[in-house]
């Protein structure tokens, strides 16, 4: 259970910066083909923005926006998108992750279909990386314990 910081300067600056950091992370993911970036880098920056919100505002604020079930869901959703796109390409009659086959569904020429396919898998990678980074940070900082009552119960169980 991470406590909220009681310093008003850091709280105000963090809450103003977090939306801009998230937009910057999404920009890095979407422009992976043009400037340095891509899926993994954007996912790390998204995870860092959630970590910043966690440190400065405490666990209650972050749980309002990203509940624990949603974090795990996002992690699995990213892998599903990645594997799913590959499988669709397989089902449409090409190799696994052969994006040019997607031009049948999307009504564009194969070169465009490749570009869109890569964007899709980058999005999937970004979601998974964000979820796992936030989850690792949260688990290390609280030891997996979610509230004070649970800590108390575990201590009692250990004594028994």
């Amino acid at each position, binding site marked *: 259970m991470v406590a909220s*910081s009681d310093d008003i300067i*850091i709280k105000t600056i*963090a809450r103003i910066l977090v939306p801009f*950091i998230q937009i*910057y992370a999404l920009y*890095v993911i979407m422009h992976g083909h043009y*400037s*340095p*970036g891509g899926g993994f*880098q954007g996912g790390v*920056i998204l995870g*860092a923005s959630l*970590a*910043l919100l966690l*440190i*400065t505002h405490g666990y209650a604020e972050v749980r309002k926006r990203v509940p624990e079930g949603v974090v795990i869901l996002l992690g699995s959703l990213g892998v599903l998108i990645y594997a799913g796109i590959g499988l669709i390409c397989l089902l449409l009659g090409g190799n696994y992750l052969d994006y040019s086959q997607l031009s049948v569904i999307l009504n564009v020429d194969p070169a465009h279909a490749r570009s869109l396919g890569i964007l899709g898998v980058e999005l999937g990678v970004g979601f998974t990386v964000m979820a796992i980074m936030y989850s690792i940070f949260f688990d290390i900082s609280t030891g997996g314990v979610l509230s004070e009552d649970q800590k108390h119960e575990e201590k009692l169980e250990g004594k028994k």
Partner: protein
Amino acid sequence: MNEFFVAVGLGMCILVFLVLYRVIFGPGVFNRIAAISAIGTKTLIILLVLGYVYNRVDMFIDISMVYALLNFIGCIAAAKYLEMER
């Protein structure tokens, strides 16, 4: 114009080495954290100077923005950890 930027970059490198003294010999951990944060700001300028020298500023601006962000978050995380440790 290139020579001016290279001279600025070298000046920043010398400043980084001066601050490195505090990272190595700083008595206590707070000195080291503040010194690493200061090195981060110098690194930003060195990255931008490299961008001008290689004539691809737009790429290096993205990288330096990410580094500034991570420097900031790292400093706050280290401070929070030390506060909880006490």
